[in-house]
């Protein structure tokens, strides 16, 4: 008799994650799970804790409390493995202005253990996929914000991560590039990559996500699959949550 195959752990699992910033709770007791191939839209008004949450998932910030597991392993105990599993595009896509586009990809690849022919192949693939071929010798410091955003995305995708963490990826992209980004996200999700996408654009979420989470004042207020005709319902839910505190009578 064959033994039942053990279920693979979720790509991302947050348990009781809390983080204070400037003396106030930025994220409070956050529980979240993300499976392979899922695209989660993380919504919230400014200061809701989205970027803090994503920075903690990416390992750039330590949680004050709670655990973050990537593919079943605590990322604090296995930081190098976490680096292999995860690709992160922070808000405003930071770059080293004195390095070229190609040098960015080489540096990111080497930091994640890619080398030689594998590194070149991976670099060529993302340059072609993100239409950066013509810019590969250009310094990052002279790129437009939209081009920097695409470079950041290329760096995040270079090592084919199992989890893609994107903070406002459509910032500064023109409408054509936004549509291309949506196609790319659907493509990587279809290939099994879990995506967590923070945005202010509800339309962005309804276009590419299959699940929505809404953060408000650091706590998770909503976490549901997105329905086929969900834009209006999502908009109502979002504004109900976002305006709840303001609408209460004094």
């Amino acid at each position: 008799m064959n033994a039942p195959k053990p279920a693979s752990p979720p790509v991302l699992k947050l348990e009781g994650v809390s983080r204070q910033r400037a003396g106030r709770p930025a994220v409070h007791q956050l529980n979240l799970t993300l499976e392979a191939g899922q695209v989660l839209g993380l919504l919230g008004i400014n200061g809701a804790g989205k970027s803090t949450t994503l920075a903690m998932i990416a390992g750039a910030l330590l949680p004050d409390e709670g655990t973050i597991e990537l593919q079943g392993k605590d990322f604090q105990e296995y930081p190098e493995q976490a680096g292999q599993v995860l690709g992160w595009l922070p808000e405003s896509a930071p770059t080293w202005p004195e390095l070229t586009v190609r040098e960015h990809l080489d540096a990111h690849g080497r930091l994640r253990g890619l080398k030689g022919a594998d590194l070149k192949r991976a670099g060529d693939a993302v340059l072609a996929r993100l239409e950066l071929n013509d810019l590969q010798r250009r310094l990052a410091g002279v790129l437009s914000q939209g081009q920097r955003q695409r470079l950041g995305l290329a760096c995040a995708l270079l090592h084919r991560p199992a989890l893609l963490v994107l903070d406002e990826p459509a910032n500064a992209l023109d409408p054509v590039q936004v549509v291309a980004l949506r196609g790319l996200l659907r493509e990587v999700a279809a290939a099994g990559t879990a995506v967590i996408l923070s945005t202010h654009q509800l339309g962005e979420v309804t276009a590419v996500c299959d699940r929505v989470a809404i953060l408000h004042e650091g706590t998770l207020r909503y976490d549901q699959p997105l329905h086929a005709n969900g834009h209006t319902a999502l908009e109502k839910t979002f504004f109900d949550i976002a305006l709840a505190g303001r609408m209460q009578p004094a």
Partner: protein
Amino acid sequence: MTLLAVTRLELRRLFVRPLGWIIGALALAELGWRFALLLQFFLMNQVQLASIPDGPGYTDIVIMPLLSSIALPFALAELALLIVPLLTMSSLASERAAGTLGLLYASGLSATRIFIGKYLAVLVWLALWLALALAIPVSMAQGAHLDWGKLAAATLGTFLTLAVLAAIGLACSAFSQHPAASAALALIVSVTLYCVNLGAQHAGVDSGFINWLAMSTHQDNMMRGLVSSVDVSWFLLAIAVALALGIHRLASDKERG
């Protein structure tokens, strides 16, 4: 090895920034001019010097003052007090300001690896700079008698001095939000550590804690050709303290946010 990936990235950044080339070239030009003065002095006094039993030779008159301020101010070691803070100021302070430090953390690197990786890159740059500076007087080796033992000791002493200054510069960069603040802080700390015993020396005190603390005490011994474990240990201790402080501050970035 990801540590070497950080070193490679930092070296690339050092070599493509004009600042590194400009300060390196200006410093070498000053050292070239200094070499010409010292060589002229040596040639003018060569006959007299040759008549002194065990008198100073080319190594003592030309090479040692090129590395440390024995006869003229602004030798390599003194220039390094200014150059190293300028070289290291952007290493961590600007990465923090630009948000790229987070990218290094997201690739799974610990603060120790990031810091040591960057430190190795600065050391490589400084070693090349030292090698180019030494190439000027050593190029005369065919026509002059070089004291290779003394030269090796002086080179080691100068390299260890540069290594301490690099560790201090990087630590100051880790503690600063802005590159300019990092450079100013590193300059103050380095100059203080270099000549903290100046008052004691003027008062005729040649021993004690204050003299032990000063970097120049240990460097001067090596400039005279004396390599002792006490001096080497001092340099290694100073490097270790600066690295530990810098790594601790960098690691706390993830906690502070």
